[in-house]
């Protein structure tokens, strides 16, 4: 039987595609997605995918129509696509509980965080500069994508095999995030800098800065009392029929 074609939607990426190489289809800043079907629900309830921790990536791979590699996506763009897939599957109404109170929100009203493309290093994609506030060392860094996350995970698994105490998720992540230290992009220099010279207060300031500039979808919601909260993503986000 020939497959029936259903309409698709174009989803705008928070990065506007500016942090991808111009040869990458993601540089267009939009991704075409199809509506969620039983095929995707089948993926979402696949025990094997859940156990391997790949269920959400498999979901995106199935829903994205554009010829892209899901692993090329940076985390913030991926987040926007997760919200879009929830809307295309189960609608925009999302209920959550915060401090014992029930709240209902319309996910389609969430906006992308403004991404300041001027922060990109001249002539380069996905490269930013930052001067550490205490040591005044100039570093360049990138926003991590799926390939980087995979490498980090493998490295952490390797470290854990050696010894549980050896697992250093924070510094491992920093070593992948930083691309040069004072103009030196040798991985050995970067690793040594993170392990021995990066001050705790510089590390914290850098992580906060990197988080603040990365393109993402804004998941903050203002409660009736004026309090701003980050929308908790619970089990009913992708499994709305789940009962306790």
């Amino acid at each position, binding site marked *: 039987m020939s497959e029936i074609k259903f309409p698709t939607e174009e989803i705008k990426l928070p990065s506007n595609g500016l942090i991808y190489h111009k040869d990458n289809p993601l540089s267009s800043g939009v991704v075409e997605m199809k509506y969620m079907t039983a095929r995707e629900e089948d993926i979402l309830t*696949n025990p094997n995918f859940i156990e391997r*921790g790949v269920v*959400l990536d498999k979901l995106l791979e199935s829903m994205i129509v554009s010829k892209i590699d899901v692993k090329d996506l940076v985390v913030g763009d991926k987040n926007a696509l997760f919200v879009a897939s929830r809307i295309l599957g189960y609608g925009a109404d999302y209920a959550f509980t915060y401090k014992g109170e029930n709240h209902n929100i319309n996910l389609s009203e969430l906006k992308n965080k403004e991404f300041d493309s001027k922060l990109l290093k001249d002539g380069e994609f996905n490269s930013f500069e930052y001067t550490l506030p205490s040591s005044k060392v100039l570093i360049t860094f990138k926003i991590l994508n799926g390939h980087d996350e995979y490498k980090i995970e493998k490295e952490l698994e390797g470290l854990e095999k050696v010894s549980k105490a050896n697992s250093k998720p924070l510094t491992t992540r920093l070593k992948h995030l930083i691309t040069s230290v004072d103009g030196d992009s040798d991985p050995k220099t970067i690793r040594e800098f993170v392990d021995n010279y990066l001050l705790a207060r510089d590390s914290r300031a850098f992580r906060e800065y990197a988080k603040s500039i990365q393109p993402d979808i804004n998941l903050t919601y203002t409660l009736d009392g004026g309090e701003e909260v980050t929308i908790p993503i619970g089990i009913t986000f992708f499994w709305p029929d789940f009962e306790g």
Partner: protein
Amino acid sequence: MRRLQSQLGLPFFGLTSKDNTQPLRKNLFTLIHEIVFHGNGGYDFDTVYNMPIWLRSLVFDRIHDFNNQQRKSAEEGNSESTTLIDSDGKINIPAFANASKANTTIRTSKSKR
């Protein structure tokens, strides 16, 4: 077992075991079966499997409403009809008398001749 981590950088609780996926999978495939089975041959498994969720819900609700309506009208029709023989096998005399009056072409032994 690997913990399902949030891609959103937020507290995230996903399904974690076969125990909580099984009821959801059963519901999903039961729903598809209901549409295929009660859809009067209008839908096959592949069509329903690849149907957007909103459309599948709409189709299911329409089939459900239609079947409910059919059942209701069948029940109403049944309540108006009378039987000449009771459930215990005895003749329902009033119903039999009414039916005899209404029937104008009752054959008698004379007419046979």
